[in-house]
């Protein structure tokens, strides 16, 4: 711990890099948030208080991993929205650093891909920071408990970014499937390579 503190003092610009350790953990209750959707309407997490939960995915236009998972994200919503566990995507990238992730570009992407789920613009990056989202696509499965949403799974969508047909472990499907059956989620946290979220 002493070493960690020393390194933070010595490398003040690095402080942001450890923010991923400060986000929500499994079992944490998530604070409500309200962000602008690509249709210009505001969407809040609390809008989903009659659903079983929400598959919250930090995503963007420009990341090759996001692109590799685009069809899989659409398929997740098609599978689980009718079961009361829809997908909500959030873009936290700073458009000044990544111009392809501006609000207008998000609108184009959602139209071209006919998104059937919200694609929200986290302009202040507060939601990304609150969750400790580090890379895209970074997924948080949120289970509704009364009026609250509790983190039930954090990590990758599955274990094979390169080839959707060769996936061995569908982490998000397993987590949501377990929650819909009122069972314990077996694998609660995973890691994946991804594009860093472009925080200011």
């Amino acid at each position, binding site marked *: 711990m002493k070493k960690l503190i020393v390194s933070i003092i010595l490398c003040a610009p*690095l402080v942001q*890099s450890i923010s991923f350790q400060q986000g929500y953990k499994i079992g944490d209750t998530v604070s409500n948030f309200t962000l602008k959707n690509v249709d210009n309407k505001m969407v809040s997490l609390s809008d989903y208080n009659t659903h079983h939960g929400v598959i919250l995915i930090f995503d963007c236009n420009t990341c*090759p991993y996001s692109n590799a998972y685009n069809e899989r994200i659409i398929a997740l919503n098609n599978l689980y929205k009718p079961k009361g566990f829809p997908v909500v995507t959030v873009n936290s990238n700073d458009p000044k650093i990544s111009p392809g992730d501006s609000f207008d570009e998000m609108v184009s992407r959602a139209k071209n891909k006919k998104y059937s789920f919200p694609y929200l613009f986290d302009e202040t990056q507060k939601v990304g920071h609150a969750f400790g989202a*580090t890379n895209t696509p970074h997924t948080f499965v949120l289970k509704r408990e009364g009026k609250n949403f509790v983190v039930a799974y954090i990590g990758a969508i599955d274990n094979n*970014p*390169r080839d959707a047909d060769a996936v061995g472990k569908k982490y998000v499907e397993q987590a949501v499937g377990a929650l819909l059956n009122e069972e314990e989620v077996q694998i609660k946290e995973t890691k994946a*390579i991804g*594009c*860093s979220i472009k925080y200011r």
Partner: protein
Amino acid sequence: MMGMTPFTYGQDPTIIKLNELQRLIAEDNGTVKVINFWATWCAPCIKELPYLEKIHKENSNVEVLLISLDLDLDSDPEKVYKFVERKGLTSKVFLLNEKDPNKWINSIDKNWSGALPATLIINSKTGKRKFIEQQLKEGELETLIDQVH
């Protein structure tokens, strides 16, 4: 290890598995190793490359190893070969060929979320290490190397 020291122009990047990467990380060759995880599609990775190349060329006690994760998304290594040639990279380039990232990310550093770029700085004599998961700024690498001495 002489073949991995600077000025190896026209290099052929090597495709490796996790156990070979772990051997590269663990092997004591008397240098400070800077092991950088990157990909050709990763803009912040490309921006920090000049700092890595500079330190590799100018400091014989530092060895930079560039570990490409391009194969994670695309099984064809050709894009990486062309990139390495076009840029004339002198740091030794490897392509990691592992399918399931969740199985190996923690074995590099448990604090790594998996976001690129990421850099591990390790004193191969003492094992003292630093890990940074963001784009390196000018001069930052020198500071991190000093910290593992």
